[in-house]
């Protein structure tokens, strides 16, 4: 594995601490505001608990991403890249473009790749730092003037996101049957397992819904998504040896 410089670990620790501080600052302000407008403490506590539990499983692939990238650029750089805005697929593409997605890349190539990875992803945060306040003020004005229109826009964006992801998963899964795809990071996706995982997640959510409505077990509502994610991944884990 490529050795990482101590200064990069130090920078990584500062960045991770900044992100935690930023999150705590927003959390503190939101909790204060929730109290000020009289929100039910139970609802707020539930949101915290729920989001913490929900976030555990989807975080694991990010750690795997660090593991995949570390063979090319060492441990510290992927840690930083995947702690901030980066995502594995994008980082691997950036590495490939700079010629660093190979074991044994030299320091000039790695330096070039780190520059590419860094400058490619800063447009989103720059937009937020410069224009977001104005944009959000316009959105709030629209919300106040025409709530129906604003709700239609929000619904359209959310609906579009769900439609885009689900269509990609379903059609990609169907066309991937008997035709596994290996991406640049070396991860192989089997269409069969994608569809089985998707179906398992839907079925488990349905079962939780039945337990909630028929069995009147209200507690399960908060855990429905974590249960369906974990259960569906367990099913995927069982099927990997079958198709691999």
């Amino acid at each position, binding site marked *: 594995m490529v050795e990482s410089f101590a200064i990069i670990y130090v920078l990584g620790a500062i960045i991770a601490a900044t992100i935690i*501080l930023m999150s705590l600052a927003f959390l503190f302000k939101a909790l204060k505001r929730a109290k000020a407008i009289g929100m039910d403490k139970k609802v707020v506590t539930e949101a915290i608990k729920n989001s913490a539990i929900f976030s555990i499983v989807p975080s694991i692939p990010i750690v795997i991403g660090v593991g995949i990238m570390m063979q090319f650029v060492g441990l510290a750089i992927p840690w930083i890249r995947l*702690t901030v805005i980066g995502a594995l697929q994008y980082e691997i593409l950036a590495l490939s473009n700079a010629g660093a997605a190979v074991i044994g890349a030299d320091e000039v190539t790695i330096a070039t790749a780190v520059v590419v990875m860094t400058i490619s992803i800063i447009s989103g945060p720059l*937009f937020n730092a410069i224009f977001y306040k104005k944009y959000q003020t316009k959105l709030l004005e629209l919300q106040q003037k025409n709530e129906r229109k604003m709700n239609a826009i929000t619904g359209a964006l959310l609906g579009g996101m769900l439609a885009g992801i689900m269509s990609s998963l379903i059609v990609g899964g169907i066309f991937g049957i008997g035709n596994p795809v290996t991406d640049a990071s070396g991860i192989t996706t089997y269409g069969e397992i994608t569809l089985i995982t998707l179906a398992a997640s839907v079925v488990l959510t349905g079962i939780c819904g039945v337990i909630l409505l028929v069995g009147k077990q209200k507690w399960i509502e908060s855990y429905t998504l974590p249960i369906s994610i974990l259960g569906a991944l367990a099913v995927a884990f069982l099927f990997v040896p079958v198709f691999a």
Partner: protein
Amino acid sequence: MKKFDILTTATTREGHNNQMHFLGRCFTWASLILICLVPIAYCIAAGVMPDWKTLGACMSFVAGYWVIGLIEAFSYAPLLGTGGQYLSFITGNVANLKLPASLNAQTVAKVEQGSEEQEIISTISIAVSSIVTTIIIAIGLIPLAIFQTEIVEVLKPISPYVVPAIFGGLTMALLAKYFKAVAIPFVLCIIICVVGNLLGFGSSLSQSTMIIVGMVLSGISTVIMYKLGKI
């Protein structure tokens, strides 16, 4: 309210919003500076300079991601809320982690769309999610440093299935509420994906591409339905 009066609790929604913007901008600039220091620190520590020729050749890639970043920041903003937007675009993994975490918390909390309660729950869930993820990644460095690629080999095979595991359940939970908004773009996206795969460019229709395609199609269909008074 004074701009720097950040420690007091705002008495109005607007005041609270201004505080969130102030915090968000400060932390975004600080994070951007730190992120940009990484390549500089690497070059100094390694005693090298980037290969400018390769860097120049990568500019089309960079430009492409600048456009994607701007589209994402623009289109996710109404869904994430003020605090969530600033946090999500520093910590990343918006579509596969931060937004689902926020939507799940909103569904459980049963908050009204566009309300201040929705905004607060979204900020809380994304802040908690960011803390959990940052800690898990940091803790994950220990087994990675010890076992190196062995641990990756064990977990790697199931990593492509996290997104279907999340979105199967999440779509079920949201479908009743957003059925009208999802139905038409979903059918159109399916057609695009099928045709794209049949024509041999299925690999270009990744989830991130299809999110943008889905949002555009959904926007068009919603405008038509809105004008017809169907929503």
